């Protein structure tokens, strides 16, 4: 047993809150060996990060309390070691990288300084640390290492920041790297690069890699073994391929079932084409910078048009311009014979009823100080002619019912709901105005897969029942594949390609679209293995 590089045994951690103790993890045991990639898979709140935090001594006590268990590193229990001893292991023998590298890098020190610090505190002489830092930066693919070392975290892109984190973590060639959601919130192409980098480095150093993720695709791409967690407990573990191909636990089954990109694509629309919204030559520039150039497309009644692209492609700008949250620089958007972009404030007010929006993060898009009733009925306060006040309560109940919540939820506040429930509230709020078009700006990106699937189902059902049209902005291609009728691909402020969902996914014309599709990870380890083989041969032949 003591042969494992790292072993967690029967770990239980409790957090004390006013509502009583919360058992974050219970009796969790797993192990990691040298040269191995172990993935801990779980959704938010599953406790998947807690054991890593215990290993790194990052659990604040109080409010946390490690009630039982051991974390054996090379056979010695980390939890019983002295502060100074653990400090000497942290960063040197076991390193960690986090989700959101922007907030995890200290904003006020240069990245070179931060990487050097790791080396210096563990005994590397200052001069040597400096040269090594430059070497590390080069190794993780940061251009102009000498210049970059003097820059600050905010001056890098998201992907580069994660590379910097990796450089910092690997500075002392640790035996174990813990990566906590390292690619979440990164674009698919960047995600692929980071995963590739991690893999390369792991091969080079032979370290053990502990990957904490919610993404089946990431597991499929890199993990040797996987531990599936739910509600603080391990429900299943095994090799990645086994678990995917042959899930035992119902939760695992549900999780795999919910993974998007598996269902049938929408058929190409045929029959009478009724353009509901016709956008031509839409432009937006900030000074000299053109955020959106010459975008033209149509939206038909009852149709879902997805707009995909990486961050900075201009897809959100497009949505904001259509909704007049930003004033466009030029172009037209004809809806019901009127140009939305030329409406006076009074006309705009009337138009708001017809076009609504669901935002990415429901936590932020719902006013935390308003109850669900207030949030939904606000629509009728603003547009009093929709509904007489006496009917508000009934209608709120009805809407909540429609989005899968119950009328009892009416008097609660947003923070009392889970993420998926909050997004349902946001959808109910949009529906309150009885719109014709709903713009969904990354509306499901922040949700766990199982929740994501439910919300997509909800949106789909509403479309069928109410005849809504969606403009569905997303970076996640599998979701788009499941949900959209037509797809618009954007890059650098331009529409590079548009067509029916089949056309885009099965016969992409543009190289950019193809890259995007190739980088998107499949939840099936077998599929990913095949793709890797293909990539490898491709690179060999090239």
């Amino acid at each position, binding site marked *: 047993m003591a042969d494992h590089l790292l072993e967690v045994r029967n770990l239980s951690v409790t957090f*004390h*809150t*006013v509502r*009583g103790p919360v058992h974050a993890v219970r009796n969790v045991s797993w192990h990691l060996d040298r040269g191995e990639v172990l993935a801990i898979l779980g959704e938010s709140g599953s406790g998947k990060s807690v054991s890593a935090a215990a290993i790194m001594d990052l659990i604040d006590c*109080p*409010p946390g309390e490690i009630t039982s268990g051991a974390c054996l590193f090379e056979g010695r229990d980390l939890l019983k070691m002295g502060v100074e001893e653990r400090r000497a292991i942290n960063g040197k023998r076991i390193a960690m990288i986090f989700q959101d590298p922007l907030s995890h890098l200290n904003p006020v020190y240069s990245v070179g300084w931060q990487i050097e610090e790791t080396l210096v505190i563990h005994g590397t002489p200052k001069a040597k640390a400096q040269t090594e830092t430059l070497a590390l930066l080069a190794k993780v693919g940061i251009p102009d290492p000498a210049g970059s070392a003097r820059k600050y975290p905010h001056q890098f892109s998201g992907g580069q920041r994660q590379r910097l984190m990796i450089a910092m973590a690997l500075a002392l060639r640790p035996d174990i790297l813990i990566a906590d959601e390292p690619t979440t919130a990164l674009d698919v192409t960047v995600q692929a690069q980071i995963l590739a980098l991690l893999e390369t480095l792991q091969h080079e150093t032979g370290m053990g890699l502990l990957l904490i993720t919610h993404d089946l695709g990431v597991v499929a791409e890199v993990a040797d073994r996987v531990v599936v967690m739910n509600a603080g407990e391990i429900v299943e573990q095994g090799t990645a391929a086994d678990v995917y191909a042959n899930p035992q636990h119902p939760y695992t089954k549900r999780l795999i079932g919910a993974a998007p990109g598996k269902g049938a694509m929408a058929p190409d629309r045929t029959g009478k084409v009724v353009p509901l919204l016709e956008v031509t030559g839409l432009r937006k520039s900030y000074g000299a910078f053109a955020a959106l150039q010459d975008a033209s497309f149509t939206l038909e009644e009852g149709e879902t048009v997805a707009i995909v692209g990486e961050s900075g492609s201009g897809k959100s700008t497009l949505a904001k311009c259509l*909704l007049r*949250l930003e004033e466009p620089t030029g172009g037209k958007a004809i809806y019901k014979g009127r140009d939305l972009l030329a409406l006076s404030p009074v006309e*705009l*007010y*009337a138009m*708001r*009823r017809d076009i*609504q*929006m669901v*935002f*990415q*993060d429901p936590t*932020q*898009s*719902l*006013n*935390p*100080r*308003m*109850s669900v*009733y*207030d949030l939904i*009925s*606000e*629509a009728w*306060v*603003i*547009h009093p002619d929709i509904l007489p*006040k006496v009917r*508000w*309560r009934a209608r709120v109940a009805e809407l909540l019912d429609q989005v899968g919540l119950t009328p009892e939820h*009416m*008097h*609660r506040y947003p*923070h009392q709901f889970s993420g998926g429930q909050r997004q349902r509230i*946001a959808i109910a*709020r949009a529906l309150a*105005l009885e719109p014709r078009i709903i713009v969904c700006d990354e509306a499901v990106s922040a949700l766990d897969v199982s929740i994501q699937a439910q919300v997509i189902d909800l949106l789909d059902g509403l479309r069928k029942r109410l005849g809504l049209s969606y403009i569905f902005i997303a970076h996640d291609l599998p979701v788009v594949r499941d949900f959209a009728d037509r797809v618009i691909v954007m890059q650098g402020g331009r529409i590079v390609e548009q067509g029916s969902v089949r056309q885009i996914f099965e016969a992409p014309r543009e190289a950019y679209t193809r890259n995007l599709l190739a980088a998107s990870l499949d939840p099936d380890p077998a599929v990913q293995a095949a793709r890797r083989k293909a990539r490898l041969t491709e690179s060999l032949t090239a």
Partner: protein
Amino acid sequence: MTTSVPRPKADAEPTAVRAVLSMLWADKFATVAVIFLAVVLFCAIFGPWLLDAVATKQNLRGRNAPPFDFTRGWLFWLGGDALGRPLLARIVVAAQNTMMVAAGAVAASMVIGSALGLIAGYSRGRASQIIPRLADVIMSFPSLLLAVIVLYMLEPSVTNIILVLAITRIPVYLRTTRAEVLEVRERMFVQAARVMGASDTRIIFRHILPIVMPTLLTIATLDFAFVMLAESSLSFLGIGIQAPEITWGLMVSQGRPYMTNAWWLSFWPGLAIVLTTLSLNLLSNWLRVALDPTQRWRLEMGARKNG
């Protein structure tokens, strides 16, 4: 607000109150502070009504009676002042003016300052340029000069002291509100409201103000203490409230000539100021933690342990 809808809150209300109380109980300092403030508030409301007659009863031949002389009745436990009036009664009576000045100045500066700050932060027009300049001017305008101007042209009454102190504190709220509004107006739920067609007034009052409010309230608690001390300093310099009106600050400054031979004249009202400001500071510290979801566990933890 505009959405006054009858709604049953039967289940939510008591638990919320109990949660607040238990969080308060978790911080013993804050609990004591709240109790003390409640006593002060009681004195401020009922003090003059109960004790005004005794508090102004002079006795020139029994002046500067020392404290802790328990033969003379409870009113003289804290001693008597330079005119032989019982200090305890005077402190109780003075609580009203003191609280009125502080509360009035804080409320007025908060309302005006935050209104201007909302305008400056929300509008993108000329007001957003001019109003911060106005704040600069008020900041550099010496409060003493302002006091002399106002008190010369009007009279040194409680209302006018409130006016002076309120004007000098306006920039604090103005700047804070403006900075917060600049941030809050970009938040998602404000955008969501705009998408629904909400008017600017609605966005400001229904969506932005409630978010800014906790910060303003925290500042207000601290300012309450600050204003009491400022009023006391003005009295010290002879341009504040004047006798026969009575405030704690005025009592302290009137007792100053006796500090070496009748310390109690300025000590007790000074202690009242210290304890009140201290209580407010403790309360504000507690509020800061209680209103911050990321810090609240500290109190919730304590409540669990003690409750």
